[in-house]
């Protein structure tokens, strides 16, 4: 029988939210590749979706996207839409898909990352916030996707390796029971 530790899950989610929130506000604006910036809201929502999935992941994706929209100058609701859909798709199986399988985790995330980045920047092109398709694809979508994937790697590593091995590393808040 598995015991669900809701409090621990909530605490872990809160810690991850704070880390990604601070990174989005403080780190992302100062690290750029071309015109691309890392999307920590996507990282947060993808972690939750790949670890938990289901309704919770969809809600987390929506609010994370909203956080991202409020912190930028783009239209509010666009990233919320993108992350809602990506979280739903990533969390369809409603199980921990990150444990012990780093490669699959990264592959899944990269697919979602590229999709979200492409949809977001194309929408910005359509509403007139960007100038050309070349600019959108080459100088924004690809650099953003690449940076986001790079920053996702440590999170993926933690949740897929260290998180599973639990007691050997002391566990801490995350322990064996998971997220």
């Amino acid at each position, binding site marked *: 029988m598995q015991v669900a530790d809701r409090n621990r899950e909530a605490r872990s989610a809160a810690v991850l939210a704070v880390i990604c929130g601070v990174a989005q506000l403080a780190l992302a*604006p100062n*690290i750029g590749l071309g015109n691309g910036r890392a999307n920590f809201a996507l990282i947060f929502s993808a972690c939750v979706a790949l670890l938990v*999935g289901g309704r919770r992941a969809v809600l987390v994706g929506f609010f994370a*996207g*909203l956080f991202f929209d409020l912190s930028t100058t783009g239209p*509010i*609701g*666009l990233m919320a839409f993108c992350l809602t859909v990506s979280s739903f798709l990533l969390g369809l199986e409603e199980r921990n898909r990150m444990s012990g399988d780093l490669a699959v985790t990264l592959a899944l995330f990269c697919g979602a990352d590229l999709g979200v980045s492409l949809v977001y920047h194309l929408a910005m092109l359509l509403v007139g916030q960007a100038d050309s398709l070349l600019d959108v694809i080459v100088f924004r979508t690809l650099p953003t996707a690449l940076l986001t994937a790079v920053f996702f790697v440590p999170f993926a590593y933690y949740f897929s390796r260290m998180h599973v091995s639990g007691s050997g590393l002391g566990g801490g808040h995350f322990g064996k*029971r998971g997220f």
Partner: protein
Amino acid sequence: MPLTGTRRPSGPTLGNARQGGGGGALVACVIVSIALFTASCRMGDEGPLGLVRGAFQTVTSPVRYLGSTLSMPFQGLGNVFTNLTADQQTLSELREENERLRARNVELEEAAMSVERLQGLLDLQDVNNLQSTAAHIISGSTDSWSSTVTIDKGSLTGVSVGMPVTSSSGVIGQIVECGPTTSTVRLITDENSSVSAMLQSSRLQGMLEGTVGDQLRLSLIPSDGSVSIGDVVVTSGLGGVFPKGLPLGEVTSVENAPGAAYLTIVVEPYAHAENNEEVLVITSLTEEQQATEEDIAAADAQDTKGAAAAGEPDDSSGEGDEEGAAGADGTGDDAYQGV
């Protein structure tokens, strides 16, 4: 182990409850996000969404500030690396741009100074209610005997002989020759120049005359008059040529020779034509800019007193103000006949 149709979760579990797929949440969140997106595109930064964003950014600004502060050393490091790897073409381009910007900067500074001078003229025009037209000094004297400048306004633009010329710092002189497009201005420092003037503080009337050394001499001030170094000398308005009250210069020395009827006063002019490029040509005077009857009476009385002290006959035939002690240039509406 119960047989169920549900698939057993693999790996560490996160709870014993499935969340129902999230389809309902998906639909709801998608609808809300599309509604927000539509509203945001329509309203832009105005409306409640703009307010919410503003409040959010205000609340999160300390975190942003912290991030930019912590990243500053690394940005500097990035610049160092960029500079180290800059190639010759980049350096050449930067040098060219630097020279171009330097030249442009000089132009802009020149323009800024010109603006300042023009603003000074404008202020002068407004404060003194001068009926005037602006002009530029285009050249200085062509000989060593006269102190004149040439301006770029002439008879075609309404300028005529006798009109006074001033700058924002003080009176320059008077027009003595007038062509269609240019005019010659005799400076107040010219030996042949004389302007009816008075001391601003004591209201003593006199004549401000040019000398050889580019200084001015204020004559006809009685020896018992109250004059101090630093006193301001202004136009008196007598003669109806120069408006009353325009600054001329400042007293730099006062000598009272024993037995002399008048003081020997040296005045440093405020305006230096070589430093002025924009000037005002005063085209007409209003009634309040001319000397009043009281001023004329005071001047007559002073002359009478001075003449008596000097033991000379009184000759107070109409004070006028003018160029033209030499009289040959026909300057001014009322040439000063003088003592």
